[in-house]
């Protein structure tokens, strides 16, 4: 049984770990949807002058034929800065198989050749299927979650974060 810490606590920890390094980056890019909320808040609280982007990896998924585009609305990616030679911090809520991050990096490269891409996540739930590693992690689960359990970030009207688990869905690309 995994006891999840409060999302707000984790967020504070992630911000703390990032703060000394924030000037190593030119831009923050969040992955839809939890990663975008995290990136927005990190940028606001740590580096309001830095560029902020968002990525929806729906068009880069490797399981379209199995799962389709799904019912949820696909959003446009928004990269309002030159990617060429930029130092980019990619932000997501949960790191799992690594496939989402793979898709996000692929997509970034279609905008240009960044100088460096690093990864920050709130929770690492382990069980990677690709050689991907986050440099900034607020919390690593001590034990794996069941495969049919999905972990994701939610944001309430006040802008506060909570973590929730969802069942009865096939494994996502996380």
């Amino acid at each position: 049984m995994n006891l999840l810490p409060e999302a707000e606590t984790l967020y504070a920890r992630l911000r703390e770990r990032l703060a000394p390094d924030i000037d190593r980056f030119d831009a923050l890019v969040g992955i839809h949807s939890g990663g975008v909320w995290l990136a927005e808040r990190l940028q606001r609280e740590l580096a309001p002058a830095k560029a902020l982007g968002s990525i929806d990896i729906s068009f880069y998924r490797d399981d379209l034929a199995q799962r389709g585009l799904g019912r949820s609305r696909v959003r446009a990616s928004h990269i309002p800065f030159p990617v060429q030679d930029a130092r980019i911090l990619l932000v997501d809520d949960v790191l799992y198989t690594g496939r989402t991050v793979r898709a996000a990096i692929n997509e970034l490269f279609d905008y240009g050749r960044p100088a460096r891409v690093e990864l920050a996540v709130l929770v690492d739930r382990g069980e990677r299927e690709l050689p991907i590693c986050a440099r900034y992690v607020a919390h690593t689960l001590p034990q794996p979650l069941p495969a049919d359990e999905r972990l994701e970030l939610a944001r309430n009207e006040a802008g506060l974060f909570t973590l929730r688990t969802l069942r009865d869905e096939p494994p996502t690309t996380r």
Partner: protein
Amino acid sequence: MSHPQLDEHGRLQHLLSLDGLPREVLLQILDMAEPFLEVTEREVKKVPLLRGKSVFNLFFENSTRTRTTFEIAAKRLSADVINLNVSTSSTTKGESLLDTIDNLCAMNADMFVVRHASSGAPFLIARHLRERGLEHIHVVNAGDGRYAHPTQGLLDMYTIRHYKKDFSRLTVAIVGDVLHSRVARSEIAALTTLGVGELRVIGPKTLLPVGLEQFGARVFHDLRQGLRDVDVVMMLRLQNERMKGALLPSKEEYHQRFGLTPEKLALAKPDAIVMHPGPLNRGIEIDSAVADGPRSVILPQVTFGIAVRMAVMSLLAGQGAQA
């Protein structure tokens, strides 16, 4: 009778027509087109969504323009595109339409984009694929006879929504050769599904089908009257061959009565937009001053068309293997 473009779960299996397409699916496609529009504005205008898929552009009737837009859309989705121009005469003499389809299925096609001179031809192909148990192969109708041109209809709806938002408050006029126009039929079907405020159809009696009122359209034979206070003017292309067969006396008279000039457009609302599916017959159905003028959204239509076709192909490919 369930519509052959939907599977047993009501999901879109093929895109055959907008006539019979549920409103929520139509809106889903329009919504999906938005992020694809963003893709077409990127430096690398390509996403890997359909990587490894084979899209066959099967044009039994030549149309470089439509074929190209499908080709661009498929390539921007990273699909492999194979273009086949099969002239109708060669198939009637030798191989039948369904023989051609069987052959291409054996080459492991994933999607057929079909243009055919006969109304209903894509339905025949879809039915054949079902009978053959090849339901994982999708059919996109790229125009059949006088019946349907669903991606054109969708891009037109995308365009109207982009500029005008709420369909229920709009008065839309379709002008020209509705009788022979698959574009008009798809537009009428989509506008009706989306609950357009008022639909007008304007043209001479020789170019309008019987019983347009059944579609909820108001029929006008006078362009000036019909254009009064409209929000959207959708022009149709006039084919040259209409001058034969006693449908119209001359291009000149058509232009004089039904051609869109700045002076006639002035009767529409001041912010009315003008659309045309292309290619334009300048000086016949539309004056250059209108086509190139500030109300014209003809070129944005083309851009939106790519995004809409990307959305359609992605939606279909994404529903193939879902059990």
